[in-house]
């Protein structure tokens, strides 16, 4: 039995929705960050599935780029969060509202 494209897309869509909800609801910057990564990987799943069913390599190519960029982004982003914690002793979003003041 072969798994159809729709199944992959549903999984990818669910993963993306879970990630988006996480970004919208969670208060911890670190968890928001993880949710962002989840959304990226949901996109990766969709791209790989498209690639497989179209028989081309375009989607796979994109996925490699996304993984590379995400790795770099994680390095920078985690560093920022660590620096933020050192400065504020907190990574909760509610405490990081200096822009409004």
């Amino acid at each position, binding site marked *: 039995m072969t798994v159809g494209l729709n199944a992959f897309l549903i999984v990818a869509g669910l993963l993306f929705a879970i990630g988006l909800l996480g970004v*919208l609801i969670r208060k911890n910057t670190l968890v*928001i960050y993880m949710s962002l990564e989840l959304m990226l990987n949901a996109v990766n799943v969709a791209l790989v599935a498209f690639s497989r069913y179209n028989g081309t390599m375009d989607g796979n190519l994109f996925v490699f780029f996304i993984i590379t960029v995400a790795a770099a982004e994680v390095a920078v982003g985690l560093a920022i969060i660590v620096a933020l914690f050192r400065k504020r002793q907190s990574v909760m*979003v*509610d405490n*990081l*509202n*200096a*822009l*409004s*003041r």
Partner: protein
Amino acid sequence: MTATQSLLIVLLAPLFSAVVIALFLRRAGKIASVISVATAGLIFAAAVAAVQAAGGAIVHDSWSWLTFGGFEVSMGFFLDDVSATMMLMVTFVGFLIHLFSLGYMADDSSPARYFGGLSIFMFSMLGIVLADNLIMIFVFWELVGFSSYMLIGHYMTKPAAAAAQKKAFIVNRIGDLGFVVGIAYAYWHFGTTDLEVMGQLVGANPALINASIAALLMCGFIGKSAQFPLHVWLPDAMAGPTPVSALIHAATMVAAGGYFLIRIEYLFPPEVLSIILWLGVFGAVYAGFCAYARRDIKQILAYSTLSQLGYIGAAFGLGYPGIALFHLITHAFFKALLFLGAGSVIHGCHHEQDIFKMGGLWKKMPITALTFLIGILALCGVYGFSGYYSKDAILIAGGLHNSPVAILLTFGALLTAGYMGRLFWVVFFGKANSEAASHAKESPVVMAVPLIILAVLSVAGGWLGYWPDALGETIKADKYELKNIAGYDAMHHKVVLLGTAAWVIGLLGSFFFYGRGAREDRLEKTAGPIYRFLQNRLWFDEVYNFYVTRIQQGFANVLQLVDVILIKGVLVRGSAGIVGLVGMCSRSLHVGNIHGYVYWFLAGLILLWVTAIGILG
């Protein structure tokens, strides 16, 4: 030296002196006064040299000053017999007054400022005299206004002096507004403001004469020469030092208005001339009355100056610019003498100016008294004195062309003799009426010498036959023209008879009332209502004051309301309010919470999607 070089010295030396005094000698009053007086002497010598070098020929040099596209403003000299006569009078009388100031201002606290002011005044005045075009005249016209402002307010701690200097400056602005519009109109009409070129244009085509231009330029004369209705500043200007009154407000600056008219006499049509004539006649008689209700010696002389400026205006209005110039020159001599005499009296009496607090000075100050008497006789037009020749000519011209004018001006002469007699008897006769007057002493030599020289000129200044050939051609031409009119001899006899009667009656009448000296004014005591009526001077100051404080201020208040509501309220505050409102709304979007921004981002994304798939069109 060529005439041009000498004229450059005449014009620039006083400027140089003023600059040196203003920049380096502010605290060195002695040196400043010496430099200023030496400069005044130098420019008189240079003026004589210039007139000799010119040898009666017209000198006209012009240099480009500013160029705006096709419009060029030039500076230049235009030396003809009129300006030569005026220049010699200004430099010579100016020099004597500088000399007199050395004595008068000896114990002043800031002589450098005073003498610097005199120098800048000489520069400005000579600029008017020598100018070859209307724009240059206007530039120097404003400069004399500035110097006059500065010197009237010399005693800057006195509120009256500060008020007087402002009044003089502001009242002159009113006349100058007409003047500057007239210059623009003249440039538009003639394509030039050069005096000589305009004269040639008008000479070739008399249809070019334009009454509006003449009337507008006349406004400058009315302001500067203190003609009715802008005469109110001159009596107040007496708050300045007395030599300043002699130089600026008697001999030169107030005469500059008349001189300016004489320079452009070819521009005047008969209608404008008759306006000038009647303004002059009214001023001559009106000022004569006002002088009776003044106690301040300088104010009496100021009204006398107003009256004589009226005669100058009347002479011009009758169509005899030469005779106006003649009276202007003789008036400069005897009025400068009278003011300096008054200065000597004031100096002797320790700055007492009320004539009823003087008295009995004839024996204490013989030189001053004698020269003052000569000045009065010249002013009254006693036969043989300079005033006789010029005033006589004006009265004859009036008698031949317009007898009401002659009658009114003869009456003015009677008034003149009366108030000058009152002044003379009260100041020099009777007993000393105050502590200061009883200790009066004759003034020092440096003050007496100018008095004596001016006294000589007040007598001899009218003897036209002895004037150098280069001077007074216009005067002689007008006199000659007058003599050739039928009925001249009969009119001459009549005028001599009536004129003599006027001064005899005036002086004797005042002697009858004031001859024994007086401690208080007999007119005030016996005829109070008349005295107070004269004292109020027809309420011109009050009317102007009412106009400014009520009508003009009211109008300004309305304008201010419009300004506050419309411009400030609606335009400025309104536009700022709209921008502020937009700012407030967009600031409320700026919550600072990252989730807020995510929702906005989502909303933007949805909007973009909706637009992209075409739901919004």
